[in-house]
C-alpha cells in the first residue's frame, strides 16, 4: 500500500497512518472488544436531582436469574470518592444523591437483557430535597447545601492595575451580560470499557479514556487499591473532546470486575445514559464592563463570571481558572479585575470540554469588543489590531508573553482576505428576505497544564529484531492525530517511512506516563520527548554502526530506510543486523520533557491550586459571513475563515483537520447545541433533540496558517486543538449584529431568539 511507503517529511501534508485501518473497519476501539465469557455491568441512576438516599431495594434484582450481584455504596471499599483533583464524586451514592445521573446501585449480569431487566427492578428510596439549578439559586443564603463545604467550589480573583478607578479615565465604556448553556461532547463512541481481574489480583482494563495513567490513581483512591496493580489500555478513542478525561466508567468497571470471579466485564453507556451521566461544558453567566480611550486603546476591564459546575467538581475549578485567564481576550489591558465563582448545583456534572472555560468568556469579551469599537466608531478589525498582544507584552492575567504570540499576524492576514475586503459589496447583495453580516473574533487558548503540576511526557523508542522502529506512545489519540504526528516526527528525524515504524498505543504496562490527552499539549509535550528519544536513538545507531563497520570515527554516517550508511565508503549496516547485535536493553532509547512554565507569576489568582498561570497560547482570528432569514430568524453561516497561529505547521493536513473540527463544534455551540434542563432533568437526552451540525449545516471552512515559530516546541509547533472552538459563537453573534443591528447575548443563537430580536428592538437584556 503506497501510503505505508510515503516518506515522512516534517511540514508535509502526509496522510495519517491510522486512517487505513479506520476506513476498513479493522481498527478496534474499546467498544469493539468483546472477550468470551463476558459479563455486563450497568448502574441504576437516581432520577431525582437532589435527595437523601434512604435505602436501595435490590432484593428483587438480586433474585433475577442471571444476575451475579447488585452492589451499593456499602460494597465500595476505599473512599468511594472519585475525581481528577477534587475528589467529591461518589462511585455509588451513599446517603445523598446530587443530580439525576448519580448512580445508586451497580448490577452485574450475564447478558444485556438480564442487565436491563435487573436495573428496572432496582428501586432507590429517595427523600427529595430542595434543589438548585443555577449559580444564582445556589448562592442564595437560604439555598440547600449540596456539599458539606457549601455550594461554592471555588471563588477567585485575577486582577492587575486598578480597574474600578480606571473606568473613570475611559472615554467610552460598555457594559453587558451574557449567558451560555451546557454543551454535550457527543463523541460518537460512548463511554465504555472492559475489565477483568487476574489471579494475582491485578486489574486489567481496556477503556475509552484520555488519561490511562491517571485513571489508575483515580480508581485506586476511590476503591482502596494499589494503583500499580491496575493496568489500563487505551485504544484509539471514537472521540473525547474532554469528556473522557477523568473516570467515566472506570471506577464502576473496576468495582464490577472485583466481583466477577475473574471473568471479563463490559460497561457501555448507551447514548441516553451518556447524556445523563456524562460530563458537560459549564453553563456560565457573565457580567462584563470594558472601557477604552478615544483613540481605541483598551484601558479597563471588569467581569463577574458564574460557572455552573453541576453536582460534582470534575475539573470545574481548573475550567473556571482558564476562562478567567482568558477573560480579557488576547489584548493589552492595563487595568483588569476578573472575579469568578464556580458553583455547585443539582444539574448534570460540568467538566472538561474542548475550549475549557475559554469558549464561554470569549463570547462575552469578543462581543463587548465589537460594542466598544462601535461606540468609538472604529473598525472592529482595526480596534482589535491596535490592542492585540505582541511578544513581550503583559497579558490580562499579568504574565509576560515570552513565547510565540501570533495574534497580530492572524488579524493582519485576515484583514487581507477577500472575505473581509469584499464584505460591504457582499452585504449589499443580500437576496430577498435575507440580511447579511460579517463578524470577527480574535481568540486564543492556552496550551498545557500551566503551573502546579508537571506537564510531562516520556517517549520510548525501540529497535525491533526485524529492524523496525517501535514508538511507545504515552498519550491517548482521541482522533486529533497525535499518534500519526509522532510517526511523522520519528520518520522525519530517523529517515524511515511508515512501513518501518510501529506504534504501541498507550498501555500502562508498556508505555510511559505522559499525562492526559488534553489541553492541546500532546503533540508538543510528547513530541518534544520523542524528538529527544529519536536523537538519542540516532546517536546510538551511529555509534553501534561504527563498531560494526569498523570505522575509526563516527563521522559521515547517515540514517536511511532500514539501515545506517557510511557515506564516504558506501558501506551499510542494516537495522536487523544492528538489532541482533544489541542486547534488548540497549535497543531502546527514552526521551523526556516537561513543558516550561511561566516564571513571572503575578501576585493574583492565589486561590488557584493548579493552572494559573499559563504561558503558551495558540491564537486565531476568525471571520463568519452570515445570512439571516427575516421570515424565520434562521442563521446560515455561508462562509467561515479561520487564521490560526500554531507555531510552525508540521502537517498541514493535520492542522486543517483540527481547525475544521474545532470550528464545526464551535458552530454547533453557536447555533443549535444546548442541554435543555427542567430542574436538573435533561429534556433532550438524545440526538433527535440535541441538535448537532450535519454536513448540510457546516459551511466551507477556509483555514489559513499564520505561522510563527515556537522555539520550545518540536519543529517550532504548538498545539491548536482547542483554539478554534472559541471563535464561532462570537464571530457569528457579531455577524448577526452586523446584519440586523441587534446583539444577541444568550446562546445558542436560535432562530427564535433572532426573530424576537428582530421584532423587539435594540439589544435586549438577558432574561
Amino acid at each position, binding site marked *: 500500500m503506497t*501510503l505505508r511507503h510515503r516518506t515522512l517529511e516534517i511540514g508535509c*501534508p502526509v*496522510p*495519517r497512518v*491510522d*486512517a*487505513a485501518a*479506520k*476506513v*476498513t*473497519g*479493522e*481498527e*478496534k*476501539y474499546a*467498544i*469493539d472488544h*468483546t472477550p468470551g465469557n463476558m459479563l455486563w455491568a450497568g448502574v441504576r441512576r437516581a432520577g431525582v436531582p437532589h435527595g437523601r438516599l434512604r435505602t436501595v431495594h435490590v432484593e428483587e434484582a438480586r433474585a433475577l436469574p442471571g444476575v451475579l450481584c447488585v452492589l451499593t455504596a456499602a460494597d465500595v471499599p476505599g473512599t468511594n470518592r472519585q475525581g481528577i483533583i477534587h475528589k467529591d464524586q461518589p462511585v455509588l451514592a451513599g446517603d445523598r444523591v446530587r443530580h439525576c445521573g448519580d448512580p445508586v446501585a451497580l448490577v452485574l449480569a450475564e447478558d444485556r437483557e438480564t442487565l436491563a431487566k435487573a436495573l428496572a427492578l432496582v428501586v432507590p428510596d429517595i427523600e427529595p430535597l430542595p434543589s438548585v439549578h443555577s449559580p444564582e439559586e445556589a448562592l442564595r443564603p437560604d439555598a440547600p447545601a449540596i456539599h458539606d463545604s457549601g455550594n461554592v467550589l471555588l471563588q477567585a480573583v485575577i486582577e492587575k492595575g486598578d480597574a474600578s478607578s480606571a473606568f473613570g479615565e475611559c472615554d467610552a465604556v460598555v457594559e453587558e451580560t451574557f449567558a451560555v448553556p451546557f454543551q454535550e*461532547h*457527543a*463523541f*460518537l*463512541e*460512548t463511554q465504555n470499557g472492559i475489565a477483568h481481574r487476574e489471579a494475582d489480583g491485578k486489574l486489567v482494563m481496556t477503556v475509552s479514556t484520555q488519561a490511562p495513567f491517571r485513571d489508575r490513581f483515580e480508581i485506586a483512591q476511590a476503591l482502596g487499591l494499589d494503583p500499580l496493580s491496575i493496568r489500563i489500555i487505551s485504544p*484509539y*478513542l*471514537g*472521540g473525547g*473532546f474532554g469528556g473522557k478525561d477523568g473516570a467515566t466508567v472506570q471506577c464502576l468497571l473496576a468495582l464490577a470486575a472485583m466481583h466477577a470471579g475473574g471473568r471479563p466485564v463490559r460497561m457501555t453507556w*448507551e*447514548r441516553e445514559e451518556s447524556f445523563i451521566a456524562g460530563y458537560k461544558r459549564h453553563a456560565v453567566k457573565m457580567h462584563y464592563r470594558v472601557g477604552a480611550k478615544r483613540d481605541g486603546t483598551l484601558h479597563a476591564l471588569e467581569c463577574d463570571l458564574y460557572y455552573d459546575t453541576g453536582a460534582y467538581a470534575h475539573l470545574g475549578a481548573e475550567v473556571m481558572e482558564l476562562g478567567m485567564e482568558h477573560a480579557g481576550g488576547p489584548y493589552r489591558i492595563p487595568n483588569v479585575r476578573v472575579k469568578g465563582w464556580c458553583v455547585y448545583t443539582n444539574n448534570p456534572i460540568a467538566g472538561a470540554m474542548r475550549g475549557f472555560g475559554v469558549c464561554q468568556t470569549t463570547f462575552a469579551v469578543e462581543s463587548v469588543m465589537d460594542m466598544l469599537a462601535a461606540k468609538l466608531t472604529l473598525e472592529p478589525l482595526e480596534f482589535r489590531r491596535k490592542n492585540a498582544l505582541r511578544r513581550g507584552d503583559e497579558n490580562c492575567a499579568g504574565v509576560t508573553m515570552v513565547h510565540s504570540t501570533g495574534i497580530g499576524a492572524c488579524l493582519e492576514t485576515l484583514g487581507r482576505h477577500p472575505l473581509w475586503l469584499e464584505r460591504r459589496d457582499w452585504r449589499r447583495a443580500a437576496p430577498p428576505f435575507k440580511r447579511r453580516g460579517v463578524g470577527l473574533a480574535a481568540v486564543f487558548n492556552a496550551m498545557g497544564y500551566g503551573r502546579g503540576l508537571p506537564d510531562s511526557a516520556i517517549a520510548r523508542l525501540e529497535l525491533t529484531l526485524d529492524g523496525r522502529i517501535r514508538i511507545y506512545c504515552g498519550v491517548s489519540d*482521541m*482522533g*486529533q*492525530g497525535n499518534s500519526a504526528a509522532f510517526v511523522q516526527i520519528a520518520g522525519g528525524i530517523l529517515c524511515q517511512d511508515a512501513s518501518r515504524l510501529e506504534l504501541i498505543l498507550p498501555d500502562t504496562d508498556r508505555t510511559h506516563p505522559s499525562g492526559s490527552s488534553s489541553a492541546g499539549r500532546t503533540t508538543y509535550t510528547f513530541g518534544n520527548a520523542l524528538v529527544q528519544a529519536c536523537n538519542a536513538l540516532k546517536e546510538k545507531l551511529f555509534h553501534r554502526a561504527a563498531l560494526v563497520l569498523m570505522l575509526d570515527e563516527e563521522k559521515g554516517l547517515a540514517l536511511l530506510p532500514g539501515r545506517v550508511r557510511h557515506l564516504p565508503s558506501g558501506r551499510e549496516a542494516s537495522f536487523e543486523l544492528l538489532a541482533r547485535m544489541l542486547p534488548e536493553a540497549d535497543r531502546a532509547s527514552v526521551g523526556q520533557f516537561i513543558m516550561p512554565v511561566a516564571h513571572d507569576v503575578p501576585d493574583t489568582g492565589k486561590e488557584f491550586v493548579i493552572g494559573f498561570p499559563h504561558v503558551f497560547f495558540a491564537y486565531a482570528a476568525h471571520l463568519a459571513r452570515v445570512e439571516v432569514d427575516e421570515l424565520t430568524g434562521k442563521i446560515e453561516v455561508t462562509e467561515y475563515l479561520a487564521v490560526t497561529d500554531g507555531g510552525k505547521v508540521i502537517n498541514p*493536513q*493535520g492542522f*486543517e*483537520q483540527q481547525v*475544521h*473540527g474545532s*470550528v*464545526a*463544534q464551535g458552530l454547533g455551540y453557536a447555533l443549535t447545541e444546548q442541554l435543555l434542563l427542567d430542574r436538573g432533568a435533561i429534556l433532550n437526552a*438524545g*440526538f*433527535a433533540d440535541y441538535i*448537532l451540525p*450535519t*454536513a*448540510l449545516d*457546516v459551511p*466551507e*471552512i477556509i483555514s489559513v496558517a499564520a505561522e510563527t515559530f515556537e522555539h520550545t516546541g518540536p519543529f517550532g509547533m504548538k498545539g491548536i486543538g482547542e483554539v478554534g472552538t472559541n471563535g464561532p459563537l462570537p464571530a457569528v453573534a457579531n455577524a448577526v449584529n452586523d446584519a440586523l443591528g441587534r446583539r444577541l447575548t444568550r446562546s445558542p443563537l436560535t432562530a427564535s431568539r433572532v426573530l424576537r430580536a428582530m421584532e423587539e428592538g435594540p439589544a435586549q437584556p438577558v432574561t
Partner: protein
Amino acid sequence: MKLRFVLNGESVEIEVRPDRRVVDLLREDCGLTGTKECCGSGECGGCTILVDGDCRLSCLMLAAQLHGRDVVTIEGLSRNGRLHAVQEAFIEHGAVQCGFCTPGMVLAAVSLLARQPRPSREQIREGLSGNICRCTGYVKIVDAVEAAALKLANGDRR
C-alpha cells in the same frame, strides 16, 4: 429462526432470534465490529450498512428482514485487499480523524455515488446529511467524496 443471506459476497446461514437488531447481529454474532452503534435511534448514521445496494440504518432493522438480502458492511467493501476508491480518497484527503463515523460515512458515500455519479459538493453534503461526524467538520469528507467521484467516473477501479 434460520437466517440465510449474502454477507460481504458470501452466503451465510445463521441461527438467530428474528427480533435481534441487525447491528447486534453483525457486531456480535458475525464478529464484524466495523459497523458501529452510536445512538441506537437512527439519528446519526454510524450503523450504516448496504442492503441490496441501498444504505440503511442497521440499528433500526431486525434480523428477520435480512432474509435473502445482499448485505455489505464496511469489511466487505475492499476486494482482494484493494481499497474502494472512496476509502482511498478518505485516507488521501484527511477525511478520517477519530474514525468512528468513517465506516458508515464511507458506505453512505459509496451508495450515493452509485446513484449519483457526479454530485456537486452541495449534493454530497445532502447525501451524507444523515451521517454525523463530530471531528472533521465535514469539509474534508466532501473533498474525499468529490475526488472519489472523479476517479470512478474516469473508469478507475471501484
